């Protein structure tokens, strides 16, 4: 490239006050290949821009350098001007001689010299710039939402309401998630089912939502706007269209297994409906439980016998459905920390040591006790209940270092509701400190203490053991330093929130990262909290970090909005300054693949290949390549070397 124009801006006196702009222009005019150099009082003004346009046309410039303010301010301005003159915008570069020169120096001769050096460097850069066009790809206007909890439901509804198709995949037989198990929700104490069920129904009725329950994502390929997803649809052995919900089948089914919905506090049959309001409203045969599913069948077939509509079909096979989507929302939710890790509290050992969700089920009117609080062991009303917070959370040595966030609130709710049920009972809460940041949250905790007399004890419980029908809780009150021993009837543990089981595998399929605690990693903790590091994949709900319902719903709507921003476009455009592989230099060592933060590089037939839509042009790959075989367009090692040379007077 041989016809560069250099335009030096005075910026009033902002630049010209410290930098001899005439001299900069004059020196640059001598630079080889610079055929035009001039200065002007405000380059960004219309007359200034016109100077550039005119010079490009008259002098047949093939590249332009504007020495002015920071590129963050006017790079676009000048590139547009360049474009107007018929030159590719990437043939225009900015030399920052204001923020990084005139404004920070006083001595005119030195500042001028520095401005010359900077501009020379940029001249050498721009003349090596390629003319580039934005990268563009078409968009499949359909979203995939993974997880049918409240976050997934909300995201699905938002996207579908905006007019796009949604495929909602849920691994269990019904959507609803953990929210459907809850009794009442803090801080308003409204009934969880009551507010959730309408939304579940809306999902099932929505013309643009395709619900796939009892299904799992098996394989994801492609990239933003153009994902290809394989979904495994597990057989339920019951045709939902035929099932009339008569419930005759469960009556004859001889097999009883623990009921997941009731957190094992009750049993269910091998053929079951997860809960009465389940969506889709249909039965499922649990193939792990039903003996009829094994080869050596002692298949009783009783359910099929009693099913009048003939909805039961033992020949149903797993099915793989392939879908194309443009964006993905991951809302896989949470599970509670594995109880076996908590031996010291007797969880799993003593029936009256419960976790928070089990307690929710006891509180729930649809629960095993019909909403009465009774000890699982003897069905007696507990008179002293100890709630322990931070079980497995905030414990970097033994368990997890993070705060599970919702336990303070739900424990307060549990203690409060307990008191509402058992007026003469006493609730104790062991806590480290109370975190009640949230609208009306602090007031809620105060209500528990003040109105319901919940006894908050600051300290940790060291041990829970059974003695004479009582659960002895040993702890320390760290405020008084006293040892505490409580003989309780029931202990409720606020177990740590963990990402739901199997999420690590799903993350691998999606090629999105996990944080150090195993939750999904967001692209930027502050500025891109609902995006994953992979373009086009968004995060919602507790899969990203523990959150309560309003937060999960809020994030879901955020993720939906992000997804819609993609789906609303016919094509996606992307900056063309992306990495390029020089194939004959590439040996396929894969270093670039490992360092790429965006999964934009893959190895194909022993050579690296860049997905230009995913590449953000950061250049980490290029610095890692021992052969300079991968380079960011318009900022290649060659550009840098020539800039160094020119800047240093070479």
């Amino acid at each position: 490239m041989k016809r560069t124009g250099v335009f030096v801006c005075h910026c009033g006196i902002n630049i010209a006050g410290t930098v001899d702009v005439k001299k900069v222009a004059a020196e640059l005019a001598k630079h080889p290949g610079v055929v035009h150099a001039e200065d002007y009082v405000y380059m960004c003004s219309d007359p200034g821009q016109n100077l550039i346009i005119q010079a490009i046309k008259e002098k047949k410039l093939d590249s332009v350098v504007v020495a002015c303010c920071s590129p963050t301010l006017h790079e676009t301005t000048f590139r547009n001007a360049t474009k107007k003159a018929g030159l590719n915008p990437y043939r225009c570069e900015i030399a920052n001689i204001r923020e990084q020169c005139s404004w920070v120096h006083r001595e005119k001769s030195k500042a001028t010299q520095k401005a010359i050096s900077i501009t020379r460097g940029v001249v050498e850069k721009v003349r090596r710039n390629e003319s580039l066009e934005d990268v563009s790809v078409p968009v499949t206007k359909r979203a995939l939402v993974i997880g049918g909890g409240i976050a997934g439901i909300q995201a699905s509804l938002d996207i579908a309401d905006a007019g796009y198709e949604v495929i909602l995949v849920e691994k269990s037989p019904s959507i609803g998630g953990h929210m459907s198990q809850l009794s009442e929700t803090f801080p308003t104490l409204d009934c969880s089912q009551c507010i959730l069920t309408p939304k579940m129904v809306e999902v099932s009725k929505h013309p643009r939502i395709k619900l796939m329950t009892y299904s799992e994502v098996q394989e994801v390929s492609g990239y933003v706007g153009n994902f290809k997803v394989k979904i495994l649809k597990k057989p339920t052995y019951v045709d939902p269209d035929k099932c009339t919900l008569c419930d005759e089948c469960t009556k004859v089914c001889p097999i009883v297994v623990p009921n997941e919905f009731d957190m094992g506090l009750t049993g269910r049959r091998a053929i079951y409906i997860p809960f009465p309001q389940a969506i889709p409203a249909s039965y499922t045969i649990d193939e792990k439980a039903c003996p009829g599913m094994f080869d050596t069948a002692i298949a009783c077939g009783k359910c099929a016998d009693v099913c009048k509509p003939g909805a039961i079909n033992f020949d149903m096979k797993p099915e793989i459905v392939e879908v194309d989507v443009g964006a993905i929302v991951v809302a896989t939710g949470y599970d509670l920390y594995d109880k076996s890790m908590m031996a010291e509290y007797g969880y799993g050992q003593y029936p009256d040591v419960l976790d928070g969700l089990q307690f929710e089920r006891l509180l729930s009117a649809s629960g095993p006790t019909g909403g009465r609080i009774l000890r699982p062991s003897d069905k007696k009303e507990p008179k002293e209940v100890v709630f322990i917070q931070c079980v497995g959370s905030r414990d970097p040595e033994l368990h997890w270092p993070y705060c599970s966030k919702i336990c303070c609130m739900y424990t307060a709710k549990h203690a409060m509701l307990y008191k509402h049920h058992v007026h003469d009972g006493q609730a104790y809460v062991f806590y480290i400190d109370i975190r009640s940041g949230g609208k009306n949250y602090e007031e809620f905790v105060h209500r528990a203490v003040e109105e319901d007399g919940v006894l908050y004890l600051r300290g940790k419980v060291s041990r829970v053991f059974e003695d004479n029908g009582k659960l002895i809780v040993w702890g320390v009150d760290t405020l008084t330093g006293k040892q505490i021993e409580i003989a309780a009837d029931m202990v409720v543990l606020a177990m740590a929130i963990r990402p739901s089981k199997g999420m690590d595998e799903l993350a691998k399929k999606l090629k999105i990262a996990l944080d150090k605690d195993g939750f999904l990693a967001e692209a930027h903790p502050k500025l891109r909290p609902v995006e994953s590091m992979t373009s086009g994949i968004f995060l919602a709900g507790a899969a990203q970090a523990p959150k309560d319902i309003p937060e999960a719903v809020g994030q879901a709507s955020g993720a939906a909005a992000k997804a819609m921003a993609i789906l609303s476009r016919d094509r996606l455009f992307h900056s063309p300054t992306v990495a390029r592989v020089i194939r004959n230099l590439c040996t396929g060592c894969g270093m670039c693949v490992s360092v790429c933060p965006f999964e934009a590089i893959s190895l194909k037939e022993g050579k690296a290949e860049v997905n230009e839509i995913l590449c953000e042009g950061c250049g980490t790959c290029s610095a890692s390549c021992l052969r300079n075989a991968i380079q960011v367009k318009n900022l290649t090692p060659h550009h840098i070397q020539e800039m160094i040379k020119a800047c240093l007077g070479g």
Partner: protein
Amino acid sequence: MVSLDQLKEEVKKALSSGKVKYFIGYENIGSGWQVRPAFIRQPEDVDRLVWTPACFHNLVRFLHDEKRRRAREKNPDIRPVGLVVKGCDSRSINVLLQEKYIERNDVYIIGVSCELTGVINITKLNQHLNGLKPQKVLFGSKGTFKVIVDDREIEIEAPDILADRCLECPANFPVIADVILGEEIKRNPGNRYQSISAYEKMALDERWSFWQQQFSRCLRCYACRSVCPMCYCDECVADSIAYAVTAETTADEKAQKTRWVERNPELSENIFYHLVRAIHLAGRCVDCGECERVCPVEIPLRLLNKKMEKEAKELFGYEVGFDPAQPPLIACFRDNDPQDFIR
């Protein structure tokens, strides 16, 4: 003891069964005691093979030639190439696997244990013999070398004439092989970074004057790079004597090729070349010591690579060549990598 007969037997087996395309081992140069890489193509040629303390060459390097040949040929014979490797050499195979330069079944590996010795340094041997000319140099028993001089047999304690790298070897036993000859005997390497400690302790200017002297005599014959099992790039970014150009390469691409190092052998260019080589070998060099051995003007290149090896270990806990599945040193990081040098 590694049995030469067994080695020959294994090679013969591999060749006559057609399992390997050809086999690279060592043979004597002429009738002397020194050795060179030997390409054995016929089972009946296995008698050329030797295994002596002068087998310092890292034969893994020849896999580059094989790879290039395969790329050139239309219907290449893709059977594995057989190789004799020592502990250090085997680690360079691991690095090539790590960098996907080769696949495991591209190579059939006969590993030999260095047991209590290793390979010799010829300069040390000559000094030790004080002007006498050796006729044969052999492995002795229990960590010694047997040197035949004037039909006399001299026993030399291994550390007296061992190559420096062997004195600092972290694993004198092949870490990857199809067949292993010899026993796995742990030899205590002592201080693995002994050779560089003196230089690390030097004052800055003293160190500079040392390196300045070393680099200023570099001829840029590129023997260091040519012999290196890790220097497999078709075109070296530092200074190319080969351009990876195809018919598709455009004139602009050729014109814009970055020339980091000029062809002149002045100090600045020599330093640039060696700096790039050192940094590019960081986390990849297995300290086979070949670069230093082949240098005709004896620039102590090992000292550079050893320094990088030490820093990789001390700063990042990184060891080279033991695990082909680990990510390359500079393609991974730890959240707590040291950053006390950053302001």
